[in-house]
C-alpha cells in the first residue's frame, strides 16, 4: 500500500480520482444502488420515511415560522411599536412596551425635549414619523348599583316622568332594603369597625331612610331626598368594580395616522388636540360589560369556534353562574322593566302566569346546545335593552387614578370616554391587546408632569404665596433674607425631578371646558414623553438595521440622550415569543435530525456489514476503493433525491394549499401568533433548497461511518470461507 496521507486525505484522493471511469461505471453503480434499495425495501422505507418526514417538517416548520414572524412584525410594528422605539438613555430599567412580567411598567425616566428629538430624527431619510408616547397603569372604578339606581332616579325626577319616578323609587327602596339586610348579614364576613372607619356608620346613614315617612315625603321634595341618598347612602354600596387600565398616552391624531392597525370600533375618535379616553374594545367588554351578557358572549365565541356546551366545561360553568346570579340581574331592573321582561319571557318561553320574572330569567339562562342560539337572541332582544349593559358609557366621565412617577402622589385625572378601539389582529390577545388610549395631556397629568393649565395654576399659587425661584448658587444669600418662602429651581440635575414635574395635589374634578379645549400641536409636543415610536418609510429588515445604526450614530453625535431599540426588543416577551418559537423549532429540528442521523446511520451500517462479502468480492475482482465509496454514496444520494424530494414536494404542496386556504387560529393565543384569524404561509424556494440541503447533509453525515467501514473491507473478505 502507498504511504498513507491520513484517512481523510486518502478519502479525498479517492473521491477526486478516476474521472472518466466514474461516468462509465455510473450506470452500473446506479443499477447496483437502485437494486439494493429495492431488494431491502423495509430498510429503504424506514430510512426513506425518516428523510421524507425530516425534510417535510423542516420545510413546513421554517415556512410557517417565517409566516408567523412576518405576521407578528406587521402587527406589532403597525399597532403600537413602530419600527424603532426610543427612550431616555441610561434609564434604570430597559424599556418594555408591554410592561414587565409582573404587569408593572418599567421605570425608564422621561424624554424632556421631544420636539428637538423629532427634528433631529426627521433628518434621516428613512424616518417617516416620530410618535410621542407614554404608557402606564391607572385604576378606575365603575359606579356601584346604588349609585347607578340613584342616577337613573334623578334622571326620571328631572324629566318629570312621574310613573317612571315612582317605579324607580319603589325599586330603589327595595334595593336599599336588600342592601340593609345584606349589611347585617355581612357582619359575620367583614370587619365592621374597619368598614365604619372607611365608609361611615351605615346604621347612622340608613336610619333616616328606614323611617317610613322618608319615602312618603319623597315626592314632595325629591331633590332633597336624592341629595341625601347620593351623599350618604350611595357610597355605602360595596359592589363597585375596580378596573385596572393600562393606558397609552399619545398624540391621538398622529397615532391614528401612523398606526394602520388601529381602528375605532364603537363611538367616535377623540377629537384632534382634545383630551379624551378610548377603551380597548376587549377591556370594555371584559371589565365594563354586564357580567351575564359578557358570559353569554363568551359562550357564543366558544360555539362559533366549533365547540359545544356539552364539551366545554367553561361554558357549563358560565351557564351555572348566570342561572345563580339572576338576582343581581333582577336588581338592575326597575319594576316597570321587570314586568315588561317577565311578560315577554312568559310569551316566548311559554311559561304559566304564576311564574315570577326571577323564575323566567332563570329558565332563560339555563341554556344548552339545543336552545342556545334562540335564548341568546332572546336575551339580547328582551333583557339587554332594559339593562345598563355597560357600566361606563360613551360620553361618561371616567376618573383615572395613578401614582405620579415623579412625586409618588396619587393623581386623579378625569377624562371623557369617546368610544372603543382595537388593534386589528391583536384584539383577541390578552397579552398585548390591553392598551387603552388617552390623550397626551391627561397622560402627562397622570404621570405627574405639568400641563399648561397646571403650570398656570401653580404659578398663580406661587405668586399668591410670594414664592420666588432661586438657583442653588443663590441659596447662600437666602439665609440673609428671612421671612421669604423659596423654592429651588432645578437645572435638570436629577433625572427623577426634571423641569415640569407637577408636585401639586390633584382633585380629579371634571371640568367640561377643559375637556373641550383643543391643544395646539406645539402644546402637545412641548412636554415630557416617556418613549417615542419611529415609523420608517422602508420597513424591510435591512433598512431597519441600517436606520437603527444611523439613528444611534446621530444620537451620539448630537447628544440626544436617547436609547434606540428595534420593535422586537421593545415588545419584550411578546416580541421575543417569536424568538422562543424560533429556538423551539431549531431545537426540535436538531432533535429530529439527531434521531434521524442515528437511525439512518445504524441502518446503513447494518446494510454495509451485510454486504461485506459483496464488497470484498468487488474489490477482489478489481474494483478500487473509490468505486466502493461511490456505490455507498450513490445509495444515499438516490434516497435523498427520492425521499427528500418527496418530502419537499409534499411540504411544498401543503404550504401552497395552506397559503391559499389559510390555517385557522383556533385559540386566542394562535389568533395573536397568526396576527389574525388565519395564517397564510408562503412557500419560499430558498427554504425548499435549505430543507433539501439539510436532508442531504444529514444523510451524508449518516453515510460517513458506513462508508469508512466499506472502505476498510479487504478483498480477503471474499475468500473468508477458506482456511
Amino acid at each position, binding site marked *: 500500500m502507498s504511504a498513507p496521507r491520513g484517512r481523510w486525505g486518502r478519502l479525498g484522493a479517492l473521491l477526486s480520482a478516476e474521472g472518466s471511469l466514474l461516468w462509465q461505471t455510473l450506470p452500473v453503480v446506479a443499477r447496483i444502488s437502485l437494486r439494493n434499495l429495492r431488494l431491502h425495501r423495509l430498510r429503504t422505507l424506514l430510512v426513506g420515511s425518516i428523510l421524507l418526514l425530516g425534510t417535510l417538517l423542516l420545510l413546513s416548520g421554517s415556512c410557517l415560522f417565517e409566516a408567523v414572524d412576518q405576521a407578528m412584525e406587521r402587527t406589532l410594528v403597525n399597532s403600537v411599536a413602530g419600527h424603532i422605539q426610543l427612550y431616555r438613555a441610561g434609564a434604570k430599567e430597559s424599556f418594555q412596551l408591554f410592561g414587565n412580567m409582573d404587569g408593572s411598567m418599567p421605570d425608564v425616566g422621561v424624554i424632556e425635549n421631544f420636539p428637538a428629538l423629532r427634528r433631529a430624527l426627521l433628518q434621516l431619510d428613512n424616518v417617516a414619523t416620530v410618535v410621542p408616547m407614554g404608557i402606564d397603569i391607572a385604576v378606575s372604578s365603575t359606579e356601584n348599583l346604588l349609585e347607578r339606581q340613584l342616577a337613573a332616579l334623578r334622571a326620571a325626577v328631572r324629566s318629570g316622568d312621574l310613573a317612571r319616578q315612582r317605579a324607580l323609587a319603589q325599586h330603589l327602596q327595595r334595593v336599599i332594603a336588600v342592601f340593609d339586610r345584606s349589611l347585617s348579614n355581612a357582619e359575620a364576613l367583614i370587619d365592621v369597625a374597619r368598614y365604619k372607619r372607611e365608609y361611615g356608620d351605615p346604621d347612622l346613614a340608613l336610619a333616616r331612610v328606614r323611617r317610613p315617612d322618608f319615602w312618603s315625603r319623597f315626592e314632595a321634595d325629591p331633590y332633597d331626598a336624592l341629595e341625601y341618598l347620593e351623599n350618604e347612602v350611595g357610597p355605602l354600596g360595596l359592589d363597585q368594580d375596580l378596573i385596572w387600565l393600562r393606558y397609552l398616552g399619545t398624540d391621538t391624531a398622529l397615532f391614528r395616522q401612523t398606526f394602520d392597525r388601529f381602528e375605532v370600533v364603537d363611538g367616535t375618535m377623540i377629537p384632534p388636540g382634545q383630551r379624551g379616553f378610548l377603551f380597548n374594545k376587549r377591556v370594555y367588554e371584559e371589565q365594563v360589560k354586564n357580567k351575564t351578557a359578557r358570559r353569554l358572549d363568551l359562550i357564543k365565541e366558544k360555539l362559533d369556534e366549533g365547540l359545544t356546551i356539552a364539551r366545554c366545561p367553561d361554558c357549563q360553568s358560565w351557564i351555572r353562574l348566570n342561572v345563580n346570579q339572576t338576582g343581581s340581574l333582577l336588581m338592575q331592573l326597575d319594576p316597570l322593566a321587570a314586568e315588561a321582561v317577565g311578560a315577554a319571557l312568559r310569551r316566548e318561553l311559554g311559561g304559566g302566569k304564576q311564574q315570577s320574572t326571577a323564575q323566567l330569567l332563570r329558565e332563560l339562562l339555563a341554556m344548552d346546545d339545543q336552545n342556545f342560539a334562540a335564548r341568546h337572541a332572546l336575551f339580547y332582544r328582551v333583557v339587554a335593552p332594559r339593562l345598563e349593559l355597560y357600566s361606563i358609557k360613551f360620553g361618561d366621565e371616567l376618573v383615572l387614578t395613578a401614582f405620579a412617577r415623579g412625586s409618588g402622589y396619587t393623581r386623579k385625572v378625569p377624562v371623557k370616554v369617546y368610544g372603543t378601539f382595537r388593534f386589528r389582529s391583536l384584539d383577541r390577545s390578552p397579552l398585548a391587546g390591553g392598551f387603552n388610549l388617552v390623550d397626551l395631556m391627561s397622560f402627562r397629568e397622570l404621570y405627574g408632569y405639568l400641563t399648561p393649565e397646571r403650570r398656570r395654576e401653580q404659578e398663580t399659587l406661587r405668586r399668591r404665596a410670594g414664592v420666588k425661584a432661586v438657583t442653588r448658587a443663590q441659596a447662600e444669600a437666602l439665609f440673609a433674607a428671612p421671612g421669604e418662602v423659596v423654592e429651588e429651581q432645578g437645572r435638570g440635575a436629577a433625572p427623577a425631578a426634571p423641569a415640569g414635574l407637577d408636585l401639586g395635589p390633584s382633585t380629579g374634578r371634571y371640568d367640561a371646558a377643559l375637556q373641550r379645549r383643543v391643544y395646539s400641536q406645539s402644546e402637545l409636543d412641548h412636554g415630557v414623553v416617556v418613549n417615542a415610536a419611529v415609523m420608517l418609510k422602508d420597513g424591510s429588515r435591512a433598512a431597519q438595521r441600517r436606520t437603527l445604526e444611523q439613528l444611534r450614530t446621530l444620537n451620539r453625535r448630537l447628544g440626544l440622550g436617547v436609547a434606540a431599540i428595534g420593535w422586537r426588543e421593545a415588545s419584550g416577551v411578546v416580541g421575543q415569543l417569536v424568538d422562543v418559537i424560533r429556538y423551539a423549532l431549531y431545537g426540535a429540528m436538531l432533535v429530529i435530525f439527531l434521531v434521524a442521523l442515528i437511525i439512518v446511520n445504524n441502518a446503513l451500517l447494518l446494510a454495509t456489514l451485510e454486504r461485506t462479502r459483496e464488497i470484498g468480492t468487488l474489490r477482489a475482482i478489481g474494483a478500487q476503493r473509490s468505486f466502493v465509496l461511490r456505490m455507498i454514496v450513490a445509495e444515499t444520494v438516490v434516497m435523498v433525491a427520492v425521499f427528500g424530494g418527496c418530502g419537499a414536494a409534499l411540504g411544498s404542496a401543503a404550504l401552497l394549499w395552506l397559503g391559499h386556504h389559510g390555517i385557522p387560529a383556533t385559540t386566542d393565543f394562535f389568533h395573536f401568533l397568526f396576527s389574525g384569524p388565519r395564517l397564510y404561509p408562503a412557500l419560499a424556494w430558498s427554504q425548499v433548497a435549505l430543507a433539501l440541503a439539510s436532508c442531504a447533509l444529514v444523510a451524508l453525515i449518516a453515510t460517513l461511518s458506513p462508508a469508512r467501514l466499506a472502505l476498510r473491507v479487504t478483498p480477503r473478505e471474499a475468500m473468508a470461507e477458506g*482456511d
Partner: protein
Amino acid sequence: MPEPLSEPPSAERIVQLEGVRKDYRLGAVVVPALRALDLTISRGEFSAIAGPSGSGKTTLLNLIGCVDVATAGRVTVAGQETGQLSDRALTRLRLFQIGFIFQSFNLVPVLTALQNIEFPLLLQGGIGRAERHERVRALLARVGLGDHAEHRPGELSGGQRQRVAIARALVTRPALVLADEPTANLDSKTGGTIIELMQQLNEQDGTTFLFSTHDQQVIKHAHRVIRLVDGQIAA
C-alpha cells in the same frame, strides 16, 4: 496422475514465490500460515493446491491473487513484485491480470448473469458497450448459459452460478485464474463438469489455472499438484 514439478522447464513464469513467509497475528500469538515457501507457476499450467484444512491453501492463493501481502519473501505476479505495490496498483493488477473463482460463487445478487460478467470490463473502462456485450455473450455460450443472460443469480442453480463466475473470471482475458475450492459447494457431478469446463478453457485458450481443493476427483484433473502441509510444500 502427473508428478508435481518443482520447476517447469522453458516456460514463461507467471507467478514466482521466493522464501515467502506469512504470519497471522491472533492477539498476542503469532501463527505462521506459510513458512519459507518457494514456488513458480508457468503460463498455461492447470495446477491444484491440495492439502488439509489449515495447511495454508487459501493464504497461498491470497498472496498469489494480490489480495494479501507476504510477511517476508518475494511474490512476483505477471512480472510485478506485489510487496512493492500500492493498494491501487494491486487492485489494477488483479483487474487486468487475474480472474477469481470463489467457493460460494460471490456473484452480485442484484445484477443479471450478463451484468455480473460484464462488470470487470466496466471497471477496466475504455471498452464500448457493443464489444463488451459481444465478449460476454460469447463467454456465456462457451460456459453453456447462452439462454440465461438475463437471469439473476437467485434464478440459477449452483452449477450455473459457478459457470457465470467462471465467465466473469475469464472476461478480462487474464493471465491467471485463481479458484478457491471451486467445487466445494457443488455436488460431485456438477463439480466434475465445472472442473472439466475449466480444463477445457485452459486447453483452448492457454489460460493459466491455479485452484485449491481437497477433492480427490478434482485433483485428478490437475497437471500438477502442489501439496501443502503446515504451510510448507510437501516434498
